[in-house]
């Protein structure tokens, strides 16, 4: 099945019916996912500056409200609207699979994430052309495939190839029939700009580098310990729980956190288990490339290149992979 690119806005109108539809576009000069306003979404060019994770895992999410007094009242907050995420690329689709593994599949099911995820329909689109710092192919992905998406729009040219990967996607496609025609679509030609030497073997060997202080000192020295990499990362899922009270009423909420921050590893009593940038950045890199693999069977880096684009100190995870590969294979 294929879909004429001209008909895209009609499909978007269908998707937006009774639902919140998110598409890539500019918000105050920053490319990110925003509510569809009837304009043609910005599917071409560089990927969004901010990842789509905010839609499923909000920066700040209310958990419950409370009222104290002679008896404490607690009321649940359920905020999971029907949503469509349209136009995400292979890398970002895979990042959602990583978060699914964390919040739904492995161990405890996080009801906040699970509810939002269940009510979201994801339509991924073939990558139109990689950004300057992309390397998803090295992370085992194909820029023209998104097996985890409900619906995938593949290929290049005048048409999109249309495939439904899930039941939810198939049901949705039934509404699209008048715009769909038979025919093949050539494979998309986008390829990554970078090809760091990532491999499953390297992932296994990386933890062996843990105690190589000189190596980590050299790698981490320019780091400023800001949270930019974590906040633009599509897979960083750490959060912090806090309250906000006025008088005897308040709300408990959770918000994004970053392992680069000094209070991230602050223990009660004041001890900090990762006091310096060496330990913090080491943890970040190893979590992305090794630890996550041990538990979830995949890397937590999807090769989108956002952290490379935005790092104030020009640190580069792709360069790190090559450097680590060199040391590991010596």
């Amino acid at each position, binding site marked *: 099945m294929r879909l004429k690119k001209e008909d895209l806005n009609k499909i978007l109108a269908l998707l937006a019916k009774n639902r919140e539809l998110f598409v890539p576009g500019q*918000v*105050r*000069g*920053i490319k990110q996912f925003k509510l569809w306003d009837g304009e043609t979404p910005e599917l071409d060019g560089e990927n969004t*500056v*901010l990842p789509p994770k905010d839609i499923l895992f909000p*920066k*700040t999410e209310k958990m419950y409200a409370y009222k104290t007094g002679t008896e404490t009242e607690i009321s649940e907050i359920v905020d999971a609207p029907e949503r469509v995420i349209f136009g995400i690329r292979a890398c970002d689709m895979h990042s959602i699979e990583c978060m699914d593994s964390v919040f739904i599949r492995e161990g405890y099911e996080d009801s906040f994430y699970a509810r939002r995820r269940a009510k979201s329909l994801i339509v991924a689109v073939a990558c139109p052309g990689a950004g*300057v*710092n992309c390397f998803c192919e090295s992370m085992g992905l194909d820029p023209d495939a998104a097996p985890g998406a409900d619906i995938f729009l593949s290929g290049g040219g005048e048409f999109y190839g249309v495939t439904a990967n899930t039941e939810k996607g198939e049901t949705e496609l039934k509404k699209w029939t008048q715009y769909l025609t038979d025919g093949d679509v050539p494979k998309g030609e986008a390829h990554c700009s970078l090809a760091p030497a990532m491999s499953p073997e390297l992932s296994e060997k990386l933890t062996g580098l843990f105690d190589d202080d000189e190596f980590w000192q*050299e790698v981490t*020295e*320019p780091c*400023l*310990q*800001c*949270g*930019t990499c*974590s*906040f*633009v990362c599509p897979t960083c899922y750490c959060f*912090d729980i*806090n309250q*906000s009270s006025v008088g005897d009423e308040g709300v408990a*909420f959770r*918000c*994004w956190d*970053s392992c680069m*921050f*000094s*209070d991230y590893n602050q223990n009660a009593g004041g001890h900090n288990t990762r006091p310096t*940038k060496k330990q913090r950045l080491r943890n970040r890199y190893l979590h992305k490339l090794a630890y996550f693999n041990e538990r979830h069977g995949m890397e937590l880096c999807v090769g989108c290149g956002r952290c490379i684009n*935005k790092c*104030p*100190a*020009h*640190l*580069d995870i*792709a*360069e790190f992979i090559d450097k680590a590969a060199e040391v590991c294979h010596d």
Partner: protein
Amino acid sequence: MSDIQSALHKRARALLENGDVEYVIGWENARGENKTRPAFIRRAEDAERLVWNRWCVNSTAKYLLHDRWPKGKIAICARGCDTRAINRMLSDGQVKRENIYILGIPCAGVENQICRRCAHRNPLVYDELLGEPAEEKTDFDRFEKVKEMQAMTLEQRRQMWEDEFTKCIRCYACRNVCPACNCRECYADQYRTGWQGKQFNAVENRVYGLTRAYHVGDRCIECGECERVCPMDLPIMLQTGRMLMECNELFGQYECGLSDDETPALGTYNLNDADSFG
């Protein structure tokens, strides 16, 4: 520029070979074109890794605070702005002059918009100067952008900051790169005191933005690093710029980081200061 680079290689190598310094902070090429990153050279044979070109945008001075009690001296490549940052930290008692060896680099400006408004292209303090002094420029208005914004109405300004602070993701890159942000523990990290809510929204972002601006505003050396590092392109320098401009208007000609022994404008007073309070 290449003259400076070769002089830099020679001097860095010599300093490390003689054991005069423990390491040299400068810049080295990063992967990809037109990109450098801060470099920390510890071995004489690595001295050639250092580069000096117009892509050397990162401030080097802040890294002195990452090593407050060095084993030996630290040699640091410093442009005009970096030396102002060093002066800032010396004035604030954050680093010791005897721990630093400054390799001064005259700089005609790098790939950063802020360099067009730079009044100190030559290092203000150094142990040795590499290359010939650069030509200083004065054909600009330090507060041009602040003045543009002042021409807006109150409501327009309110809306503009509302939009900007909605964009902010509070990654704290502006704080971490700033040489004037040198508190041992930032108020924003003391979350138990409740000064800074952890929520990500325009209100909390503004509390952070304004508090930071006020904390550093009268000590700002105008290096523009906060704006360069901001992943969301917030015009952070407008806030500190407005404060500096007001300090200039109220307390006379005022510029920071010009000496290693200066008191911030709001850390001192004059009996005859302007007073409109009554």
